[in-house]
């Protein structure tokens, strides 16, 4: 039902047309699972088409970046949800907010970066994990911290509180 349909174009070339996506409440894209079972080449093309359906991700990544097509759809989905959640936390708690700078790393992760005064927060969204690095000074031993997070509101709130204050 939600599987991508294949259109036959001229000269026997085929392309994959993404299935329509339904938005349901806060859980956003519910039909992403069928995409995850596709072959890698299909996944890549689908990721390229899907990106426009994830405005948070589309807005923070560089325009005209071919690497978007190589992204795992789970990473796009998680990043979109992460940015939305952090923004909501900032709004609710009247914390500082700034749109992140987004990039695709050499390991095909999405890297989000924020700067606030002397503090810097980087979040690496991978298919199986979300890692962060906090930096607040030149001393790497005492002024840099890294770790893993997941999409839990309390965890994200304490992370955002750190950069916001």
């Amino acid at each position: 039902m939600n599987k991508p349909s294949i259109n036959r174009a001229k000269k026997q070339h085929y392309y994959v047309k993404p299935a329509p996506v339904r938005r349901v409440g806060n859980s956003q894209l519910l039909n992403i699972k069928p995409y995850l079972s596709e072959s890698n080449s299909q996944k890549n093309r689908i990721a390229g088409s899907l990106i426009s359906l994830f405005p948070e991700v589309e807005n923070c990544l560089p325009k005209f970046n071919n690497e978007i097509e190589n992204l795992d759809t789970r990473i796009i989905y998680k990043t979109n949800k992460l940015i939305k959640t952090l923004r909501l936390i900032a709004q609710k708690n009247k914390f500082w907010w700034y749109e992140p700078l987004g990039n695709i790393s050499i390991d095909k992760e999405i890297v989000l970066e924020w700067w606030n005064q002397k503090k810097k927060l980087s979040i690496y969204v991978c298919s199986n994990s979300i890692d962060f690095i906090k930096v607040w000074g030149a001393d790497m031993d005492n002024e840099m911290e890294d770790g893993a997070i997941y999409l839990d509101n309390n965890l994200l709130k304490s992370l955002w509180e750190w950069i916001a204050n």
Partner: protein
Amino acid sequence: MSNDFVEDDEVLYRCVFYGKNGYKIIENSIKVSSQAFTDRNQRPSVDRAKLCNHDPRHTQKDPRDGVVSLVTKDVRLIDSIIQNDQKGNPEFSYKIDVIYRPLEDNHAHAQIEPSPEYRNAKPFRKLLERLAYLANQREWDIEPLIEKL
């Protein structure tokens, strides 16, 4: 004196490519991203200012690109890139060096290299953060073209 060894006081230029989200404007200052230092081989390229007449335009690939700089000594002082074992306990720290690697078309080329090679992505991420931090402590040698909306 031989040019093969990169002296501690040498300035190194790094190109920040236009249009690739290598920087962000925050309250009138331009912050360089850690991803502006990334490298497929985990050995970020730099140009030795001394070998390009201290002209950062040498490092630009496009007139719209920005150029930031680092000092070799600061890079060599990065001694806290730690490799943890599987249980998360510190195993050893990487030694970071600047090695002269001249190219046919770029006599000033050098690389920021670890010893030993990075075992996984995490230490390299930390290096990128540190390089961006160091670059952000200095003025841009050439600011990237900022498009006015």
